[in-house]
């Protein structure tokens, strides 16, 4: 069954822009990205949108639909009524390039700031051995498709541009947690997380978890455990004393 849907799409670039109204055909089973493509094909041939897999796995088509960070390809039209007006804007945390396309290089810069996996010295890549139960906790974080919706929704940088220098964002704090929990990683990442990557800015309001299309429990399983690990290292005198007496760090 088809109907004419009402859409409002932000169009413009860094010099300025506005939300424009469109009426577009909507068919059964479609997602918002299908509508954007139809709009390109029929009414706005120069509408810029980034997309790739159409299966929620490449993380390219991130945008904001009715004010909520979503993947265009995973937002079903059936979740709206025929009378709803659907507003689509680019991600509002990153610089806009054109229309629905933003410059997400902030995230790549933050990724580069995190030291890579640091295995024990003298163990060659093919000789890594570890138990499944030791790695499965951090495997959840490997589901990340790097859509950057969590980075977009995080108010620390969304509402405070000046924090971008000192805050890595939930995706990369999760990466630090992943490495810190890794059984073979030998680098101490706790102080780094707090002092260099801004873990203390996170006030655990869980928006990153709410928007994650992979349903990763970013806050409960990565950020809060990492905060607790930082407490072990920086704020808990008993744990500090215990580690000195027993001379053990990586238990």
């Amino acid at each position, binding site marked *: 069954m088809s109907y004419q849907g009402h859409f409002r799409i932000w169009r413009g670039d860094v010099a300025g822009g506005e*939300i424009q109204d469109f009426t577009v055909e909507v068919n059964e089973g479609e997602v918002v990205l299908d509508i954007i493509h139809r709009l390109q094909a029929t009414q706005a041939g120069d509408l810029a949108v980034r997309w790739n897999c159409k299966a929620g796995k490449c993380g390219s088509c991130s945008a904001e639909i*009715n*004010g909520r*960070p979503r993947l265009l390809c995973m937002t079903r039209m059936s979740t709206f009524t025929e009378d709803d007006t659907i507003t689509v*804007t680019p991600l509002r945390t990153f610089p806009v390039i054109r229309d629905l396309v933003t410059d997400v290089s902030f995230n790549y810069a933050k990724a580069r700031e995190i030291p890579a996996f640091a295995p024990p010295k003298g163990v060659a890549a093919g000789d890594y051995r570890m138990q499944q139960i030791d790695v499965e906790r951090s495997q959840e974080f490997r589901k990340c498709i790097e859509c950057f919706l969590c980075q977009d929704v995080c108010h620390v940088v969304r509402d405070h541009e000046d924090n971008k220098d000192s805050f890595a964002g939930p995706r990369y704090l999760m990466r630090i947690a992943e490495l810190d929990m*890794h059984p073979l990683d030998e680098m101490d990442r706790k102080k780094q997380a707090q002092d260099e990557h801004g873990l203390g800015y996170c006030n655990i309001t869980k928006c990153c978890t709410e928007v994650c299309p992979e349903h990763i429990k970013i806050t409960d399983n990565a950020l809060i455990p990492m905060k*607790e690990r930082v407490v072990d290292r*920086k*704020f808990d005198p008993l744990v500090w004393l215990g580690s000195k007496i027993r001379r053990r760090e990586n238990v």
Partner: protein
Amino acid sequence: MDGTARQRAGTDFPGRARVGARTLRTDRWWLQPLVTVAVLGIFIAYTGVRIFMRDYYWVDEYNYLTPLFSPCLSDSCVPGSAHLGTPLPELPFFIPLPFLIFPILAGFRATCYYYRKAYYRSFWLSPPACAVAEPHKAYSGETRFPLIVQNAHRYFFYAASLLLLINSYDVLLAFFPDTGFGFGLGSLLLLVNVTMLWGYSLSCHSCRHITGGRLKHFSKHPLRYKAWTILSKLNARHMQFAWISLVSVMLTDVYILAVSAGWISDLRIIG
């Protein structure tokens, strides 16, 4: 739109798409913070008044002691209510009887990872909801005083757990009044309340971390891994335990207050 107006819109910083609205969300995003303010506000107002009351926290006939006053430790406590003794002297009227335990209970909740989310969103609007711009011009999170004190949560957990052991003893006493085994609605309320409090404490993120979360090699600590696995399941329900235990503390206290004041009689089931 000039620069000031753009700044006010929350996310319209130079270079970003200029939308000019704090949020484009069309759902009732304001409902959750509103309900949080209402429920937490009622609880704070109620306990704020209640801890200054010096009556109706103990029902001598049935050994009911409200969790808000347990343990009662001063000579000001009514006879029978101080079952751990009275190491403290008479307290002047302006010092609440639970002046030692209430800061622990309040601190445990105030530094709790779930409640932090709840009140940062609803009271401090930081942010009021996801993708809704907050009103503050600057933000430093939990990087400096006073919010850096949130990192003391585990110490509040330790202290609150000791109090919870005493609360559990209180429940036992409520099932064994002076006449022998017997219980009423008050005993059951105390039991449900302490069960929810255990649920809240054991599902705490710090408890999960201390038990096994801090380990790098689960395989070397099978018992701690098993405990961590169980607590992780409870941890997923931490929000529910937080709200249920908050309400159960208040309801239990109201019931004991009403019985103690003689407004109602305890509904006895046995004994």
